[in-house]
């Protein structure tokens, strides 16, 4: 069976506003199995988000191949959900309209779309808030809307770009548990980008460590912690600490490289 996502020798270059060429990713190889939950960690600016943009089809690769379910990615295709780091729910739509947007765009009748949206709103625990506008919700609630908005389309691949980084610690671990429950009920593959190693280990089956930019996969670690997991408690397991230490040794060097670079560019 073909992997759900496969990146082979992928390089991505951007033209900076000043006209220089910036290489975000260099010769990156990565494969995600169907139904697998993968986390991608790396220092700031290593091209983690770029990886997601390539898989989603929002950006084309400069070199190399990006396959989704055995087919080369060419533009945005069905079956992909994307939860953005910043708030990307539509501020002029109510919660209900936001969640119903996906099915409506895909041609579902308005009534069916709203009905399915109600169902998903209750699944993410927002019943009673259908008619609120995003500005009336807390950050955590807006993330729930974003999750429902993505999941209602039944994605086979869910891309998440530091989705919980703006939340407070308690809300964050609540949301992480709910994400795991929702993921378990689906058969989606998840690529979860984060800079938080603890979050990466407690959620995922596999962790990819990306080097300081231009990013490429430095190493891959299997997380053999049992499921179902409670992210708030799994951190106390001895095995968790072992895995953390192992990955951190690897990640630390990259973080230091990136930090030194930032300091230098700050001084210049």
């Amino acid at each position: 069976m073909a992997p759900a996502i496969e990146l082979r020798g992928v390089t991505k270059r951007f033209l900076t506003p000043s006209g220089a060429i910036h290489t975000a990713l260099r010769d990156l190889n990565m494969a995600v199995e169907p139904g697998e939950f993968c986390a991608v960690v790396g220092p700031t600016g290593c091209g983690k988000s770029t990886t997601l943009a390539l898989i989603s089809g929002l950006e084309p690769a400069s070199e190399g191949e990006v396959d989704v379910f055995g087919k080369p990615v060419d533009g945005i295709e069905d079956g992909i959900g994307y939860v953005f780091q910043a708030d990307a729910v539509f501020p002029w739509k109510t919660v209900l309209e936001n969640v119903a947007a996906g099915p409506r765009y895909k041609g579902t009748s308005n009534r069916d779309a709203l009905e399915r949206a109600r169902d998903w709103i209750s699944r993410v625990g927002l019943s009673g808030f259908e008619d609120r506008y995003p500005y009336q919700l807390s950050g955590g609630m807006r993330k729930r809307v974003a999750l429902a908005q993505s999941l209602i389309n039944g994605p086979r691949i869910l891309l998440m770009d530091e989705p919980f980084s703006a939340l407070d610690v308690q809300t964050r671990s609540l949301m992480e548990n709910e994400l795991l429950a929702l993921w378990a009920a689906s058969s989606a593959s998840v690529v979860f980008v984060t800079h938080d190693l603890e979050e990466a280990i407690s959620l995922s089956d596999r962790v990819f460590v990306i080097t300081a930019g231009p990013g490429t996969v430095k190493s891959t670690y299997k997380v053999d912690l049992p499921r179902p997991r409670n992210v708030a408690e799994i951190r106390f397991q001895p095995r968790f600490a072992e895995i953390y230490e192992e990955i951190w040794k690897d990640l630390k060097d990259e973080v230091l490289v990136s930090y030194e670079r930032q300091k230098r560019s700050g001084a210049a």
Partner: protein
Amino acid sequence: MNGRSAAARLSVHMSARTEQAGAPVSDLAERRKRDARRRRLTVNALRVLVGVVILGSWELTTRLGWVDVFFWSQPSAIAAKLWLWITQGTDLGPLWEQVLVTMEETVGGFVVGSILGVIFGVALGRSRLLSDVLGVYIKGANAIPRVVLGALFAVALGLDIRAKIATAAVLVFFVVFFNAFQGVREVDRNLIANARILGASDRQLTTEILIPSALSWIVASLHTSFGLALVGAVVGELFGATQGLGELIYSAKNNFDTAGVFAGMALLAAMALVAEALITALENRLIKWRPPVATETRI
């Protein structure tokens, strides 16, 4: 005075304590409501006072002969003129007809200009090629003083309402256009990416993301552009008309009737204020998803 401020201090002090002690919320709400009422009353009283001072000193200085009534008129003469117009009609016919004509021209120009402005603004905001090609012409057209086009329209379209609507529309168009254009350009990239991932087509992207997002810019521009539509209608009338407030002012000027000029101006100001209130109501309806302004949420 001293006693009252001491009492006020005391009440503030006490209320601070009761708030801490968790006094019934209804008391607090009641007090805040009373404060708000008092504030509104003060504002209204001060408004009246400012009006009385301005009009009173105008009346006084003209009566004392410090300012020439012939050139600057005076409030009582203007009021008398307005009353005369209302009760006996103007030289051009009943007053309400003049108001109605100017209103039609203004609203017509406002609607035509706004619609064209939104269409062009969104189209150019969407398409890089269009904006690169047409941008320079639009900027150029914007740079010329467009009211002179009123003269052209008066010749080409004649003395009827179309010439005035065209003049008003030209003035409105550019304001709305630039705001719609900017509004579309400034749409959050994340929202576009999200909509595209969720499956929005190009058309849906325009109607569901770009236009709603640009709407707050567009509506904000309507406040300015209604005033401009009024300018366009009045200038259009100056270039040749048989009816309307602009024509009324023009004929008053020709008769050295400064009270008539001021009376016409007062009517235009009243129209603009009413329209402003209507646009604000429209704004609140269209953009109800926006968080209310901080001063409004203060209890």
